[in-house]
């Protein structure tokens, strides 16, 4: 079973930077700037989750499925949950 899955991963060859990458990178920057500008912390945390998820796509597309997987689980998942728990306790408005 693992053999066929491995073959699938091998097909994920990296190409030189293409439009898809550029769009993802632009989205990353948008998310980061959005986080800088937003005053609502909960929105920032959700946006950070989206940011991590886009990053994970970039890495999957760059030949790093291991890192992409970890970032999806840690960055988009656990870190965001921790942020949200804390924000629910300290208040979601930034002054």
């Amino acid at each position: 079973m693992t053999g066929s899955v491995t073959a699938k991963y091998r097909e994920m060859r990296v190409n030189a930077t293409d439009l898809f990458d550029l769009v993802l990178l632009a989205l990353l920057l948008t998310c980061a700037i959005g986080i800088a500008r937003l005053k609502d912390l909960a929105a920032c945390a959700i946006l950070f989750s989206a940011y991590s998820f886009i990053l994970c796509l970039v890495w999957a597309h760059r030949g790093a499925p291991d890192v992409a997987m970890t970032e999806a689980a840690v960055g988009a998942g656990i870190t965001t949950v921790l942020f949200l728990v804390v924000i629910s306790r300290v208040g979601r408005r930034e002054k």
Partner: protein
Amino acid sequence: MKIAATALSHVDYLVAVALFLTGAWILLTSGNLVKKVIGLNIMETSVFAFIVTTGMIDGGAPPLVAPGDPGPFASPLPHALVLTGIVVAVSVTSLALVLILRVRAEFGSVELDEIALSLAAGDTAEQSERHGSADD
């Protein structure tokens, strides 16, 4: 033209720098401690993005090497480094969040301005008390 070509070939690096600086901006200018930690996380991921990109190779496959596969393969070393880095980052983030909760419990706020105010108030109270008792 040459500049544009260089910028395009290094676009990943440039975006990483831009993300790093955005994160630094949030860390430095935000008065809210939680927001600062989010900024720190953006800085961290930007460095990871940079390191992962150093291992990328055009036309390369993920570093899953089976006999008979001609390659080329992405370099596994940066990926391993970033995996370690991600673990370190989540460790630091969770410690920071716990400290924020304790700061909130002790000063009633996670805004630096308000904490500074309550610290100043505490200081003057302490000083006047000391002034009264140590005046021998």
